[in-house]
């Protein structure tokens, strides 16, 4: 046996960072211009894979948010509200094209600022972002057909807050439908990943979007709070944790402010004994390790039928052994860096809880860099329904495995969390898929696939995973004011 002579590992295939040009300092994007925050306050954004400092970004205060809302209000009343849909569409089409043309630059920047593998930012986040603008551009002059029998108007100024897991894609999911329906926006990207939103601001300048139609205020929780509490915001949209979502719902409730929430999840990924096993293994891996598990709809609970559990878990472990954890800029990388030190801490804490509650932990042998934030892909077996790792969102590369005997038991276990964002089902039996799809309390059901998204396909949760949809015809209603649409 002489195989040890050969090095069968992949040579690094690093994506060049020459395509991006990161400024030392970024301002807020208000009324079409980059401006300093009051008192010139800034915060640093770093590369989570290396902890290298990338840039200082302005931190918007209450007064800055106020300026942004005023700019949005002025733009709404001056340009945007009464602009014909055909014209609004033109701007959105322009943005879509610019994102396609500068896709590589955005993808590399996304990976540098957020830690996700370049293959994902390049092949998923950016194409999706561009597609969202293109799709919604087409709605801008066709809204009457989306709401038959109903009079449709825009809300006015929309406040939007997004998370750090898909920064550009989330920006597109939020901005595209809001603009298509005639609203102006004050947008707050997550504090750990502000750079692509600020590059988008350049694009908005380049396409001559009227000033104030989109304003971007960077900052952390206090900036978001200022936006949520601002009395001149007509509608709020938030994607993020259920905890923060509930705080926002509280803040909006007494004002009866229109609100949409896309919150956390604890999706069940159900594998029956009659599934195409190897495909299901791939699906389960993609379901939880895609984007380091920083996905609200991640398939974080594997429910595998008892009769195949042992074999399936063995195959799963063997597959996970082959995942390549490392430099997100390397095109061979499967699992990149954890987005922040804080998130790494949360993941590590919940994994400790999993061990102490008695679940059995499996992690492949992989060497993790000392610098940066890393967490090995993790599988817990012997998980009980009451375990915290079966109930709470970990938002990291951690899979909890449970078993079931009957389809009824699978449904019961799948639905037994306060969440209801997504679910996965693997079986080759069509009638069982449709039966499961009916009974699973989830806004999205992936059957014999997982983590698929499309601008034409509505996405959003049941129960504590939020309300309102993003994408598709159904997603438009989040951004329009409508009359009763009937008689009374």
């Amino acid at each position, binding site marked *: 046996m002489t195989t040890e002579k050969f090095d069968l590992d992949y040579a690094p295939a690093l994506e060049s960072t020459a395509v991006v040009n990161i400024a030392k300092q970024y301002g807020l994007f208000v009324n079409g211009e980059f401006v300093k925050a009051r008192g010139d306050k800034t915060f640093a954004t770093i590369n989570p894979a290396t902890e290298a400092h990338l840039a200082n970004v302005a931190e918007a205060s209450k007064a800055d948010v106020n300026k942004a809302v005023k700019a949005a209000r002025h733009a709404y009343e001056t340009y945007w509200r009464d602009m014909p849909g055909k014209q609004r569409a033109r701007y959105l089409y322009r943005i879509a094209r610019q994102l396609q043309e500068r896709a590589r630059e955005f993808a590399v920047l996304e990976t540098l600022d957020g830690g996700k593998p370049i293959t994902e930012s390049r092949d998923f986040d950016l194409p999706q972002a561009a597609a969202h603008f293109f799709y919604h551009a087409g709605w801008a002059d066709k809204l009457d057909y989306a709401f038959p029998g109903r009079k449709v108007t825009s809300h006015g100024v929309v406040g939007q807050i997004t998370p750090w897991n898909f920064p550009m894609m989330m920006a597109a999911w939020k901005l595209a439908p809001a603009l298509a329906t005639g609203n102006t926006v004050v947008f707050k990207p997550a504090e750990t990943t502000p750079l692509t939103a600020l590059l988008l601001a350049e694009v908005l300048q380049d396409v001559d979007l009227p000033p104030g139609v989109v304003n971007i205020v960077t900052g952390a929780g206090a900036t978001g709070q200022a936006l949520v509490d601002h009395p001149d915001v007509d509608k709020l949209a938030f994607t993020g944790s259920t905890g923060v979502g509930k705080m926002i719902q509280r803040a909006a409730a007494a004002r009866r402010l229109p609100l949409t929430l896309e919150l956390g999840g604890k999706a069940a990924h159900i594998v029956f004994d009659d599934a195409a096993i190897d495909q299901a293994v791939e699906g389960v891996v993609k379901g939880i390790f895609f984007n380091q598990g920083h996905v609200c709809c991640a398939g974080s609970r594997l429910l595998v039928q008892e009769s195949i559990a042992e074999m399936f878990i063995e195959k799963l472990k063997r597959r996970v052994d082959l995942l390549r954890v490392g430099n997100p800029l390397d095109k061979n990388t499967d699992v990149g860096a954890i987005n922040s030190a804080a998130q790494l801490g949360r993941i590590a804490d919940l994994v400790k809880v999993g061990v102490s509650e008695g679940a059995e932990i499996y992690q492949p042998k992989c060497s993790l860099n000392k610098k940066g934030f890393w967490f090995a892909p993790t599988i817990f077996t012997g998980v009980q329904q009451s375990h915290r790792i079966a109930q709470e969102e970990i938002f990291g590369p951690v899979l909890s495995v449970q078993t079931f005997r009957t389809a009824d038991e699978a449904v019961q276990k799948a639905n037994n969390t306060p969440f209801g964002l997504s679910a996965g089902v693997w079986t080759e039996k069509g009638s069982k898929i449709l039966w499961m799809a009916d009974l699973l309390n989830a806004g999205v059901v992936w059957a014999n696939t997982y983590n698929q998204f499309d601008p034409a396909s509505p996405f959003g949760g049941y129960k504590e995973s939020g309300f309102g949809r993003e994408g598709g015809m159904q997603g438009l209603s989040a951004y329009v004011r409508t009359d009763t649409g009937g*008689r009374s």
Partner: protein
Amino acid sequence: MNEHLPVDKTFKLFIGGAFPRSESGRTFAVRDAKGALLANASQASRKDLREAVRAARGAQESWAGRTAYNRGQILYRAAEMMEARRPEFVSVLRQIGVTPKAASKQVDQAIDRWVWYAGWADKTHHILGTVNPVAGPYFNFTFPEPTGVVGVMAPDEPALLGLVSRLAAVIVSGNTAVAVVEGPASLAAITLAEVLATSDLPGGVVNLLTGDKNELLPWMMGHLDINAVDLTGAPKDLDPTILEEAAVNVKRTVWGDSTAESPYAIADFLEMKTVWHPIGK
């Protein structure tokens, strides 16, 4: 001397298909314009609300699991039963101060609401659901499902038409309802309950609590097993901070039109589910 002393009806709550008194033993007097006593209606308590939610939750899955055709027929049956008891409804409305002409019209409209919404049972999917042309080899479709258990603050006016319009929109898709009715409207509501109890509607699909909205609303907003609250008939003097409690379980809150005849009134109590499946050989 009156030879036939009328046998007055006792107005009780409607929970799980039965007519219990409030566990609290409380009642409130409903009087006509001249001050004569019409009834001592049951005043529901927090515990009655909890029982009603339990009944509604117990009934929800099987109600939603019935065919849309079947649910449509049951709503239509409610219209039939109301029509049969038309004079009684007119009389109740007149007792609580509605003019004869308006009472007659309101009963007609209420009957018509059941019929109108019954027809939507198997049609909301057509207008709200979609097949989505995604950019990949997947069959992708979106369809509406009921939200679950819905708390309803029933409109005070019009007493009968308001309640029927809201209830029909809520339950036609497979939701179950716990409605709170206040004041004189309670008499119309409990008379309606007698119709629902004989309309093939499974027990627990509609539960009616008469009492004080301001007393019961905070418990309704904070209840972890209520998925949505219809605030259309919320009290005018509502303390808006009560609404914050909706956040405990991310409740949907709806402010509608008290007499709406609109498929979008149904849509307010629906969730959209999207299903993906690959296409291949």
